[in-house]
């Protein structure tokens, strides 16, 4: 699977951090960093909480379904201010992405809220996944767009 972000990242402007994910212990730090970066970019406190929550969800999915992976958090590229989050893993992959995005669908013990919820609270949301190879969830949120 191609790592889109690393290959096209311009050196100069974006600030970013790569978090290896191994266990639920990593959640606290990654949420705190996401919140801090979001605040520095100019998100209001509601949006900071949404971003921290979305991070929590993708991080949990990595731990639950793939065991390990990594999450990259960075300031968005392009002219508008925003944040980009990419969650990578080499786990089992998602067979039916449509299905995984349905509210209430879960192959685990969950409520099937994580992915559809993230799609709702972020401005852009995309899943690339291949069965047996892994999953990449990338999502963006802009400061000036009003999310519902």
């Amino acid at each position: 699977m191609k790592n889109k972000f690393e290959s096209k990242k311009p050196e100069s402007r974006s600030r970013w951090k790569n978090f290896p994910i191994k266990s639920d212990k990593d959640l606290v730090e990654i949420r705190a960093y996401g919140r801090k970066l979001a605040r520095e970019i100019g998100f209001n406190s509601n949006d900071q909480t949404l971003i921290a929550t979305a991070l929590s969800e993708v991080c949990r999915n990595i731990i639950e379904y793939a065991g390990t992976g990594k999450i990259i958090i960075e300031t968005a590229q392009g002219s508008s201010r925003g944040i980009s989050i990419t969650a990578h893993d080499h786990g089992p992959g998602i067979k039916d992405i449509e299905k995984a995005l349905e509210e209430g669908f879960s192959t685990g013990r969950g409520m099937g809220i994580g992915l559809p919820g993230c799609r709702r609270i972020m401005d852009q949301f995309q899943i690339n996944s291949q069965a047996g190879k892994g999953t990449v969830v990338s999502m963006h949120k802009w400061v000036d767009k009003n999310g519902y």
Partner: protein
Amino acid sequence: MRVPILQQGGYLIASVQSSLSDEELLQLRDDLVARVSTVRARGVVIDVTVLDVMDSFATRILRDIAQMIKLRGAPTVVVGIQPEVALAMVQLGLSLGNLETALDLEEGLTLLGEHTKAD
């Protein structure tokens, strides 16, 4: 750190102290369920004022806790959810189901008092 559980009157009060790890939350569940039975508590208040994120896992475990405590005959009230956290929860699509909520500890205890009276 283990979440401390206080006993006040017939009620148990669990005040989450700082951002909670999964293990600590599961520990809290087991501790509460055990204590409710041993002290025959009339109700439980879980204070989450300090939590700045409630994700699907935390929500699910809180619901589980309430369910298990209900089976032992006591109601649970979650108190102190911050406005931003509440907004994020509903926007994500998370719900606490039938779990009762109150503004803070004082309100939570009042609510439990009403229940006990009504029973």
